[in-house]
């Protein structure tokens, strides 16, 4: 029982310490929902959104866990570059 209490306490401390250290990746995932934008704004003549959706689809199909998250952030980086190019083009 004593051992169980210690384990529980250790788990609680680690969890509490981890909360304020949430990386921006996680914030991004929670706040902006990195899942494919359903419908999205396809009214324009760009192709950034379709490339982004394809990229996310490939992440889902080929990766898992933390690698999947990294893959999706890489998709965001490419999307970011795509819209930056069209903004400055």
């Amino acid at each position, binding site marked *: 029982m004593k051992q169980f209490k210690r384990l529980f306490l250790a788990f609680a401390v680690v969890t509490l310490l981890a909360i304020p250290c949430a*990386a*921006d*990746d996680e*914030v*991004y995932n929670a*706040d*902006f929902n990195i899942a494919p*934008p359903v419908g*999205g*704004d*396809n*009214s*324009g*003549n*760009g*192709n*950034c*959104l*379709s490339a*982004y959706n394809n990229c996310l689809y490939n992440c889902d199909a080929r990766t898992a866990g933390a690698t999947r998250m990294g893959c999706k*952030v*890489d998709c*965001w*980086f490419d*999307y*970011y*570059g795509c*819209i*930056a190019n*069209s*903004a*400055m*083009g």
Partner: protein
Amino acid sequence: VTTSYFRQLTGRLGVAAAVVLAITAAFSAPPAVTFVDVFRTPSMSYFLTPIGEIYVAARGQSPKKLLVLHYANNLPYRWPKNPASFAQWRSEWLVANGANQLVRFTHDGMFTGFVELPIRSPKVAVTNDAIWITNLLAGNVARQLWRSTDGHTFVAQTEGASQARFTSPAKNLLVLAAGADGDVYVAAIIGPPLVRRVWPPNRRAEIRIAGSRSKMRAGMEEIYGVVDDVTDYSLPLRDLLPLPDGGFAVLRNREDVRGSTGKLELLKGRRADCYDRAGHQLSTAVFARSVHWLTEVTNTKVIGVSNAGDLVLATWGKPIPEEILSP
């Protein structure tokens, strides 16, 4: 007979093809280069290509290839993601590519390792005493800009920065500009025509910049979520160059102007403005062609460079103020 004739014919065709190829190679233009970023010192401008080459241009000169970022065995550095931004920090090149590391190279381009970052950064800039990076995934202004004075530890610049949650991660598309004297400016690529001077702390300011926009574009300053095409949004500036006297020059981005027929026409990267250290607009220059960066400013002229490396010179004239036009 048929076989020998066929051999003769293919031989002649081969020779003719080789001659045509040789002539084409001899007279064709050098391969086109597209630059993704510029790093400016008082005497030189350096340009980065998406495959990790650095070009250099002395004042008033066209860019020439300086080096290829490489490993110790001289093979080009293999980029998992294309390089997006670079700067020279002390005697090293630092390159950002959206990862949570900056890639370090010696002054002559040899890979030496990484600077680990607490965030993923697509942009790096330097002042005389600090490295500045932007956060690809910030959820608010207070998480957008990070600074390091030792080259290892980065701290978010939260002073005076809003903690209000962004409506879109595209709010992290930024123009970041740092002057050797220590001034640092940040501006949203999509948003109102505003520039924030974030450093030095005693000169922090939010400065409204000039530009001509249609009523519709002026109403599209806020971006929500992920969009396909940003070209209709308010995209006020594409570059900012801090000046030694504490002022700065801005290259306007997408503008709507009244054409000779009375209709609104699009101007892209064609006008630049000079501002004094208090943020007052002093003058405007109009480039004959679109440019992407400002590389040189004097009292009378300004030089812009396109992302293909073409130099365009313009003369400062009367300031053209902000304008919002009805169709």
